[in-house]
């Protein structure tokens, strides 16, 4: 089937949505689908078109015209999207996440015959439930609403009950990294914060929680793997807390190398404000690391508190400090949780099952498109 994936962010950006798509789409090409990705240019020069894993990627200046508040640019892109959909005539239009650039795609969706699949990757905010919000518009317009976690699906169905019979979950996961997990290091113990250094991830909380831990366990190290707007503020915070010399800042790590970075960690920290079902938690499991994360959204569906990791209350530094201390004071328990996290992910977050589920959903959407097109 012809699949057009509209994903505001794709490689070279790095994040959960991008990592999932990077692994999933070539796997679905192997299942026989013809897949093209429409995505946005970003801050570094990359080709307008390129292929990887049998997937054709087309890039357009979506963010440029939206952030530049350029109505003419937006209208011209709307016209290009209409033309593109006419040329490709996809069986399935997969809207990969909610994004501002969907504003440029909305008119092109009218009158086209493919099935529209909307995928939700994270928590729905209250403002997204308003009738004129992009989420509501697209949920109404879509033939199927797919969520990466139960938590977000419940929110979506509460916001728009009519989607109940045309919605489902395919739980987020990734393929196992090409690294064998090494034993958890305790000399020195090392906590890893992996992800964009953005307000959402709230890594400042990790620093504040780590400061009293480092007073008791001065050998502890912190690794930050990622980059973003918050980096200067985080580094300044580390200095003001007197722990700058315990922190290592890796910048962006090549996704293929993530397993090796995780192997340096005793445990991972994810004190996010909101999430879907974060892939870093799945990656932690594959590498046998316990994760300390906020008790929110789909995080609760991957981390079993006290068994495969520890869940803390949102915005609670003391709770996070207590969790980190527990990991250090009870190393055998920490090793047990690490092993349990790997076993849990192996059992419940199987990559081949995930690919098969997407394949089945695409074929189901294809039937909708075929019915819409009528007999040829």
């Amino acid at each position, binding site marked *: 089937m012809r699949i057009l994936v509209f994903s505001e962010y794709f490689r070279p950006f790095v994040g959960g949505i991008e990592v999932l798509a990077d692994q999933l789409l070539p796997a679905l090409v192997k299942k026989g689908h013809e897949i093209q990705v429409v995505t946005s240019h970003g801050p*570094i020069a990359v080709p307008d078109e390129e292929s990887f894993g049998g997937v054709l990627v087309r890039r357009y200046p979506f963010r440029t015209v939206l952030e530049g508040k350029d109505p003419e640019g937006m209208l*011209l892109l709307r016209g290009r999207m209409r033309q593109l959909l006419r040329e490709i005539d996809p069986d399935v239009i997969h809207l990969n996440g909610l994004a501002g650039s969907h504003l440029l795609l909305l008119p092109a969706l009218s009158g086209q015959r493919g099935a529209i699949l909307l995928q939700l990757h994270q928590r729905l905010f209250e403002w997204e439930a308003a009738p004129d919000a992009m989420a509501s518009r697209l949920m109404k317009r879509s033939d199927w609403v797919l969520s990466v976690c139960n938590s977000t699906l419940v929110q979506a169905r509460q916001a728009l009950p009519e989607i109940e019979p045309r919605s489902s979950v395919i739980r987020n996961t990734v393929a196992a990294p090409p690294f064998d997990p090494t034993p958890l290091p305790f000399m020195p113990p090392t906590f890893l914060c992996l992800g964009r*250094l953005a307000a959402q991830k709230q890594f400042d909380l990790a620093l504040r929680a780590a400061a009293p831990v480092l007073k008791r366990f001065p050998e502890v190290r912190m690794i930050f793997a990622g980059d973003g707007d918050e980096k200067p503020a985080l580094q300044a915070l580390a200095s003001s807390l007197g722990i700058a010399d315990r922190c290592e800042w890796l910048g962006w790590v090549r996704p293929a190398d993530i397993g090796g970075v995780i192997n340096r960690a005793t445990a991972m920290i994810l004190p996010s404000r909101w999430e879907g079902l974060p892939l870093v938690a799945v990656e932690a499991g594959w590498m046998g690391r316990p994760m300390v994360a906020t008790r929110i959204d789909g995080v609760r569906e991957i981390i079993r508190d006290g068994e495969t990791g520890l869940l803390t209350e949102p915005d609670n530094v003391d709770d996070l400090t207590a969790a980190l201390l527990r990991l250090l004071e009870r190393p055998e328990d920490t090793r047990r949780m690490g092993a349990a996290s790997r076993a849990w992910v192996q059992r419940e977050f199987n990559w081949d099952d995930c690919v098969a589920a997407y394949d089945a959903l695409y074929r189901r959407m294809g039937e909708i498109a075929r019915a819409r097109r009528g007999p040829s």
Partner: protein
Amino acid sequence: MQGRFERDPEVVGKVIDGEAIIINLATGMYYSADEVGAFIWTLLESGHNLAEVATQIAARYDVAEDRARADAEPVVLRLLREGLIRAAQREPDPAAAAADSDERRAYVQPSLEVHRDMKDLLALDPPMPALKRNPWERS
């Protein structure tokens, strides 16, 4: 609503092929309008009053003038409420109403779509300003 209007100076807008995108730079709100809605925008920002807008719509589209006025008025009120147009003392630009064809087009009731959440959507997924090289490639 007898007076004339003009685009608010904090607003940018463009119409291409009968489609309008309007952005309020002060509030960060985005708006869109199709066909008749976009035509209304073109006429208002070039100084036409409501009565003139209705006349021009009836000349271009297959609709009676009184219906055109009844449908245009809520759009005009919305544009005013959203701060996209303001009262003006000026003569209208006749070029804005110039017909590009003698044939009247099919009429669709005009609307102005408000995209209130664009600012929030753009803020949720900030770009990666620190990205200097492609992290997917070996350094």
